[in-house]
């Protein structure tokens, strides 16, 4: 089975995530799209790991690290979103222009 099947699927999921980040207005939906992108990267790593056979174990180790970092990112990201909602009563990323000059 060609490894490029998995790579193209992963590229598709990544591009869908990019579209979501650019087009969504709700900050939580932007975080969901970021999860899509991180997941696409993991599919890439696991596909290469499987293609390399015995030597591919580090690929899965790094995929595990990415899963852990993604969990941390979601925790902090949602905490920030909830704090912004509490202070500004909105989660619209278009209205969060406090740090723009």
């Amino acid at each position: 089975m060609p490894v490029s099947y998995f790579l193209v699927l992963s590229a598709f999921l990544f591009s869908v995530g990019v579209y979501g980040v650019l087009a969504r207005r709700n900050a939580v939906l932007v975080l969901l799209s970021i999860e899509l992108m991180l997941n696409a990267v993991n599919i890439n790593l696991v596909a290469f790991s499987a293609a390399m056979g015995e030597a591919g174990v580090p690929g899965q180790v790094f995929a595990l690290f990415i899963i852990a970092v993604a969990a941390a990112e979601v925790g902090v990201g949602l905490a920030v979103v909830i704090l912004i909602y509490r202070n500004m009563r909105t989660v619209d990323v278009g209205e969060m222009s406090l740090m723009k000059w």
Partner: protein
Amino acid sequence: MAETWQEILFWVLAVVMGVSALRVVTTQNVVHAALYLVGTLMGAAALYVLLLAELLAWAQVLIYVGAVVVLMLFGLMLTRAPIGKRSYDNNQRLLAAIVAGGLFAVMSWILIDAFDGQKVHLADAEGTTAESIGDAIFSSYVLPFEAVSVLLLAALVGAVLISRKDEASLVDDPEEGA
């Protein structure tokens, strides 16, 4: 061909994941977006099983589907902003679609060009066990592992600190006034 059923399974999973990923970024119901994300993430877990990466598949189910999506649902519930009839998308959808489409075209062209001949041998492979991954983590990758554990602790403490109501300042203020 020895890998026929793997190919069929791959295409089924690819269609399911692609469609639910598209629904994640286009649906106008925030809870449905989170539930479609479950579809994509479970598809990825099934793909890991197909690629003989069992440990990663279970980690995916436990952490992504079990923890991250539930956290997202809590986030959506706690921030039910009065958006009303306004769309969840901004007015740059066309531009975003062009950027994402262009990115997909360039990436798939480069990836197919670069990894054309390589194949994944699934039919006669044994796959990686949790044992070999644990060996790799605790021999070659101890330092990154410890760094990730410290990162998780920092993220945990940071998330709690950011999102709790600021009671300390309420207590401190009278003292400063006095």
